[in-house]
């Protein structure tokens, strides 16, 4: 069965800290995505990657960066965490092409104090 695993379900960090969110998929998918989910706004794309070491900005990349050194792993980095980055973060993966649905992890609830 398809599996996307996010390393933490809940995370609490302090303002200014560098935060790493990890995501691993076991489906050999080329595409991987990071979203944040906020009430009333749905899911918004932060960054995506269509191959190892390749990355593209999504709709809200400010304050974030990503790393994809291996095909199965996609990391989201908050360079200097701020309170407005408190959110639910969701990782997804898919095969190439728009007709391939994305498979999501269960999310990381991140709180920045």
């Amino acid at each position, binding site marked *: 069965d398809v599996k*996307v695993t996010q390393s933490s*379900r809940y995370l609490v960090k302090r303002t200014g800290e560098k935060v790493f969110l990890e995501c691993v998929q076991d489906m050999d998918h080329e*595409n991987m*995505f990071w*979203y944040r989910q906020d009430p*009333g*706004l*749905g*899911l*918004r*794309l932060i960054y*995506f990657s*269509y191959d190892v070491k390749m990355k*593209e900005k*999504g709709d809200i990349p400010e304050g974030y960066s990503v790393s994809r050194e291996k095909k199965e792993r996609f990391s989201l980095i908050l360079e200097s965490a701020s309170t407005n980055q408190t959110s639910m973060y*969701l990782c*997804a993966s*898919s095969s*190439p*092409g*728009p*007709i*391939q*649905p*994305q*498979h*999501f*992890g*269960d*999310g990381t609830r991140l709180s920045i104090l």
Partner: protein
Amino acid sequence: DQQVKQNSPSLSVQEGRISILNCDYTNSMFDYFLWYKKYPAEGPTFLISISSIKDKNEDGRFTVFLNKSAKHLSLHIVPSQPGDSAVYFCAASITDSWGKLQFGAGTQVVVTP
């Protein structure tokens, strides 16, 4: 500015009746549409999709209708069951965009006995 809009944040329906969820989009370049379902503390799961070359797609109790001229799609669930209580997200994609999705804000469906 959100390109995919779900204007009803919530919907309550009796078990056995029809649930109708609506979604509007503004970008005429979108040519593939998906619905995802999300339970609390879980990631979204793919439900059903439709290409812009069709106006209807059916999968068991779930049917999606697409009206391109109105830039509108809807999801019908018949009959509604208690297990359908969840948040439903509408999403849209453009071919050759690496499968990037634009999501709506979601509609919370509650199915009552």
